């Protein structure tokens, strides 16, 4: 109880000291715990997020899609935990490259941030911050039906996905190559026969912490299994597709054949009908022709007959006429003759009537009458013959005419029919030709398809893991690279804080020497006395640690998290008190502090209580080394001489002070130095070294040299395109595969877009004898100009490259060469698959053309890298902030100890009539010297620390500028000087308050 009371009194007596002790412990442990903990908290937070949302471990996509068989096969693997199939489709919506996914329920679960899940196929979920609920999204790509059932969606909810934790969503195969947005819809809205991807979570992987090695090891087991499975499933899929295709072809061919046969039959029938009709027409015509002939023949024979009859009649007539003539009857016509005859007969008859029939005359006349009557009847007979003949002629003519007419009509009809038939024939022919063509076309299609199938390549599985997710890896980059910088600092902090505590405690025990003496002489045990200090320290340390850990585990990580995950869409930080580290900190702090106290107190016990009661004999003044150099010493003013003497009186304090000040200076300088190193590299890289604005990556089959590309470039006024062959290669260093990018150019002159200089700023140019590689690569591989390096391409082919130059470069690893050397080294004809240009504006015509698969804008690269670098910069500011705080504390602590140690001396000086300024200066001169030396040492230390931190923190593909700018030195010095002045200003108040009366008291 007494112990505690004593300790509390001690606290009350010099509250400032107690508080500064707490502050130092708090600062040290806060920074140590906080910075140490942040990245692990971050990783844990993300790990939890990944586990909650069941982020995939692997994603398989295949060039020919995936099937249930694949799904089952993967499911059967020993080390799979969950497998889920999904569809995705990339398209451009409202100018944004958008990836459409099916909503999964087992893996890659989305988190609904507002709204609700889609109820039907016309609803969708969108990325938080892209569209608003209620908006309608329409896919304008005409080919959407190949993938989707509908193309219009109503936004019903916003989501975030652990697949996309970074604001840069990654690459896309559409638009400008940058994915801008993602949408989730119901799986059954996809119109695909196969799955586009399969997600897998490996067994036990969620029990491991993401990003950690044991996670990698865990999924590695499954990776091996999957890699073994891949060729099997690829073959199965290949066979399946091939068989399906062959079957399809067979069916198609059969169908075509059937069709053909059926059609041919129809055509044949038609043709037969046509032919029959033709035959009939021909027959008809023939008949008509024979009709004609017949009638003409008839005509000839009939006319002949008429002629014969007429001739006969005429002959009879002539005979009669001759007889008549003998009768003196000449007539012109038969009728006249008949009437003449009748007259004659009548006249004769008349005569007869008058004559006796026995008269000779009568007989004579009777005979004449008989003659005449015979003549007359003959004539009448002839006349009848004529009449009959005429009648026969007329009848015949009528018959003839009607027959001819009939024939003509029939012929005309038939000819008409013929025309129609000809048309029908034509139509038939056309149709038939068309049919043949169609068949041939179909057959060709089939044979083409057949040829294609025969050439069909095996499908290829692509196995992606989380490392292939830009967000996933960038997050780790942010967390760990910053962490590696920060790792060095907390130790520094702890060391300085520890030294300060040591200093304070030593001083305190020194001051309370008499009290210790009194207690000892009163017979209080050493243990109790020691304990009163230990309790004091214990309280201070515990409070300090409590405050420190509270801040360190809550505020620091939160601030850091907020600051350097601004580019991420992730849940808020979950802070975890890292119990082992807590305990370590508590143990280390308490142990060291207690030991220091026990040591300091026990040093006093060595002395007899009586000695303790007496004031400590002042520490022996000593001449300093400088005094031996007489000619300098003589020239130094008295005040400075005093200062030098004082300085060297307490070596321990000098060392403490120097360590404190130089430590803070070094920390500050390092902070600024890191800022220098990282802040400009991106700008320099993309504006001074690689000066181009964009790189157009051509579609796979195109070459930059092709006519269409040239025309395209010319038509769109794209000036100075630089053709280049780009390729990603890898090289090995310490068993690690590191990526590097190859540029091969047609000419040696690439100065318009690249500024390659060696480390001494000499311009480098391409040559036929080797490649230029970048500094970082040369450093990593430890090679120099003239050496060779081994590179591998994506097919693991090995190439040996000779180094012709090493160029300054900050970001990424590059190899530059010309065409000649490329063709020599790769033994392959160069194909220019990219074009470097100065197109900087996005949404340009190039993007809309179909020639380019991707356009890489330097701006985008810069943005991306700047994000990482900004994170680093933020931690630097934190370091600077903390260092500044530490610097103030250290300076204050040292100065106040310095003053408290010399309270009596200062009081005496006051009595002697030193004014405030002189007294301040009396103290400050030492501080000034120590600060100056401390800063100087600190700057040198800082250079080393900066270099060390940069080397430790330097990523594989980045070179930091290991140069600290003058400004940083100046800033560091200014800050330190400012703090020194600030602290002196505070302490000058203490100095003023020192009571002169104290000088009269006996020494305590």
């Amino acid at each position, binding site marked *: 109880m007494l112990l505690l009371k004593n300790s509390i009194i001690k606290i009350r007596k010099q509250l400032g000291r107690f508080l500064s002790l707490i502050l130092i412990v708090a600062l040290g442990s806060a920074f140590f715990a906080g910075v140490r903990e942040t990245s692990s908290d971050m990783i844990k937070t993300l790990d939890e997020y990944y586990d909650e949302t069941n982020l995939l471990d692997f994603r398989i996509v295949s060039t020919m899609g995936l099937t249930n068989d694949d799904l089952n096969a993967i499911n059967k693997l020993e080390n799979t935990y969950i497998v889920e199939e999904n569809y995705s489709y990339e398209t451009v919506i409202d100018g944004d490259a958008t990836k459409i996914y099916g909503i999964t329920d087992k893996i890659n679960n989305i988190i609904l941030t507002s709204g609700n899940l889609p109820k039907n196929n016309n609803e969708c979920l969108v990325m938080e911050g892209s569209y608003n609920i209620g908006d309608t999204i329409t896919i304008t790509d005409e080919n959407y039906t190949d993938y989707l059932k509908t193309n219009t969606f109503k936004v019903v909810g916003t989501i975030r996905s652990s697949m996309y934790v970074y604001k840069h969503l990654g690459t896309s195969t559409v638009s400008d190559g940058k994915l801008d947005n993602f949408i989730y819809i119901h799986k059954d809205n996809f119109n695909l026969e196969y799955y586009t991807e399969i997600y897998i979570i490996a067994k036990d992987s969620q029990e491991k912490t993401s990003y950690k090695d044991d996670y990698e090891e865990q999924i590695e087991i499954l990776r091996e299994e999957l890699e073994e499975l891949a060729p099997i499933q690829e073959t199965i899929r290949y066979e399946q597709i091939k068989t399906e295709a062959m079957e399809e072809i067979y069916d198609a061919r059969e169908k075509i054949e059937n069709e053909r046969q059926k059609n041919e039959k129809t055509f044949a029938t038609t043709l037969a009908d046509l032919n029959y009709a033709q035959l009939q027409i021909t027959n008809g015509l023939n008949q008509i022709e024979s009709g004609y002939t017949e009638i003409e023949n008839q005509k000839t024979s009939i006319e002949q007959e008429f002629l014969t009859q007429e001739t006969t009649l005429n002959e009879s007539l002539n005979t009669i006429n001759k007889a008549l003539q003998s009768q003196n009857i000449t007539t012109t016509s038969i009728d006249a003759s008949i009437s003449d005859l009748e007259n004659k007969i009548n006249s004769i008859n008349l005569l007869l009537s008058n004559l006796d029939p026995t008269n000779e005359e009568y007989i004579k006349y009777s005979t004449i009458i008989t003659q005449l009557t015979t003549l007359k009847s003959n004539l009448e007979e002839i006349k009848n013959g004529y009449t009959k003949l005429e009648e026969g002629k007329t009848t015949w003519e009528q018959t003839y005419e009607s027959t001819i007419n009939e024939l003509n009509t029939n012929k005309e009809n038939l000819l008409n029919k013929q025309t129609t038939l000809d048309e029908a024939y034509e139509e038939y022919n056309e149709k038939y030709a068309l049919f043949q063509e169609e068949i041939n076309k179909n057959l060709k299609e089939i044979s083409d398809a057949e040829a294609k199938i025969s050439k069909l390549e095996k499908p290829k599985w692509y196995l992606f893991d989380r490392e292939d997710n830009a967000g996933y890896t960038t997050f780790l980059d942010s967390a760990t690279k910053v962490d590696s910088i920060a790792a060095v600092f907390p130790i520094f902090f702890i060391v300085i804080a520890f030294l300060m505590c040591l200093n304070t405690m030593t001083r305190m025990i020194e001051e309370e020497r008499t009290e210790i003496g009194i207690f000892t002489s009163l017979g209080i045990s050493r243990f109790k006395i020691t304990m009163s200090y230990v309790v004091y320290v214990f309280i201070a340390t515990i409070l300090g640690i409590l405050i420190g850990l509270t801040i360190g585990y809550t505020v620091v990580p939160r601030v850091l998290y907020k600051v350097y995950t601004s580019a991420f869409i992730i849940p808020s930080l979950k802070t975890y008190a890292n119990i082992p580290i807590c305990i370590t900190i508590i143990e280390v702090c308490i142990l060291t502090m207690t030991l220091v106290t026990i040591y300091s107190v026990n040093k006093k016990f060595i002395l007899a209580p009586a000695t303790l009661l007496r004031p400590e004999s002042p520490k022996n003044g000593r001449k300093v080394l400088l005094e031996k150099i007489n000619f300098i010493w003589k020239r130094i003013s008295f005040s400075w001489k005093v200062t030098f003497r004082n300085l060297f009186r307490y070596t321990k304090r000098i060392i403490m002070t120097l360590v404190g000040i130089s430590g803070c200076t070094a920390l500050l300088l390092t902070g600024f130095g890191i800022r220098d190193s990282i802040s400009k590299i991106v700008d320099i890289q993309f504006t001074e070294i690689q000066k181009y604005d964009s790189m157009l990556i051509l579609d796979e089959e195109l070459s930059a040299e092709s006519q269409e590309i040239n025309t395209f470039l010319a038509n769109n006024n794209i000036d100075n395109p630089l053709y280049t062959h780009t390729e990603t290669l890898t090289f090995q260093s310490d068993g690690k595969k590191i990526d590097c990018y190859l540029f091969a150019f047609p000419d040696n002159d690439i100065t318009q877009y690249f500024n390659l200089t060696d480390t001494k700023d000499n311009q480098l140019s391409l040559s036929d004898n080797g490649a230029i590689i970048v500094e970082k690569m040369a450093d990593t591989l430890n090679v120099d100009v003239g050496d060779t390096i081994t590179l591998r391409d994506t097919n693991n082919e090995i190439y040996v490259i000779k180094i012709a130059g090493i160029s300054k470069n900050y970001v990424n690893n590059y190899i530059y060469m010309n065409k000649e050397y490329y063709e020599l080294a790769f033994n392959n004809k160069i194909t220019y698959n990219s074009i470097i240009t100065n197109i900087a504006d996005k949404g340009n015509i190039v993007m809309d053309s179909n020639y380019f698969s991707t356009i890489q804008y330097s701006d985008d690269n810069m943005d991306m890298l700047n994000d990482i670098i900004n994170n680093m910069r933020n931690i630097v500011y934190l370091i600077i902030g903390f260092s500044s705080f530490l610097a103030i504390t250290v300076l204050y602590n040292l100065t106040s100890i310095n003053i408290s140690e010399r309270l009596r001396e200062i009081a005496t000086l006051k009595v002697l*009539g030193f*004014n405030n300024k002189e007294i301040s200066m009396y103290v400050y001169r030492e501080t000034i010297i120590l600060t100056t030396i401390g800063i100087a040492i600190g700057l040198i230390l800082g250079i080393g620390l900066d270099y060390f931190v940069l080397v430790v923190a330097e990523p594989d593909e980045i070179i930091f500028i290991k140069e600290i700018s003058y400004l940083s030195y100046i800033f560091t010095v200014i800050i330190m000087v400012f703090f020194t002045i600030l602290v002196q200003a505070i302490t000058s108040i203490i100095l003023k308050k020192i009571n002169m009366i104290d000088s009269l008291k006996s020494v305590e």
Partner: protein
Amino acid sequence: MAFIEVKNLTKIYNMGEVTIKAIENVSFSIDEGELVVILGPSGAGKTTILNILGGMDSPTSGEIIIDDTDISKYNKKELTKYRRYDIGFVFQFYNLVGNLTALENVELANQICKNPKDSEETLKKVGLKGRMNHFPAQLSGGEQQRVSIARALAKNPKILLCDEPTGALDSKTGKMIIKLLQDTCHETKTTTIIITHNSIIAQIADKVIKVKNGTIESIEKNLKPKPVEEIDW
């Protein structure tokens, strides 16, 4: 008019609710070159008088006229100047700067004065010719006090104030210090005020001012001050 004229000096300390009258209506005068002993038991108020005379504190009321100047209304800056140029102070515990040699301790005070005496000469006068380059820790108590006196004298002060100069010394050494003070007072005609509770020392003074309970008990002129050799305690 006397060199030092103290009139109705009162000093009240306000300690929160309690007020303590350290001295009340103290008046005395000291002539130039006089060796004065202010005598009194502990708590009588002599240190308060010393503090006020020495310019380390200001009185609540009253006047202190030194060489025709009233210092009672001086502000801090003026008091500093007063201490600097007019006062030489000898401490009970010497208050030497530990890491300065004897000579340097004297020089320390010297460098802020207008007409300092030569430091080495002063040290020689106090009998430390051979110890000038020693550090305080290497000197005996008496020697240290001599350095302290030398430091005060070298400033060439108008008044030499000595606070229990023998308090931490054995009697033999104490006597030697008192002798030194007496001698210098007589030789240099420096007004010397010694504050002590030791009545024996009073015998060597030209004037003895006795203080008791914050007031002046008596002021006695010692017409025949004893030489130091004759006193004993």
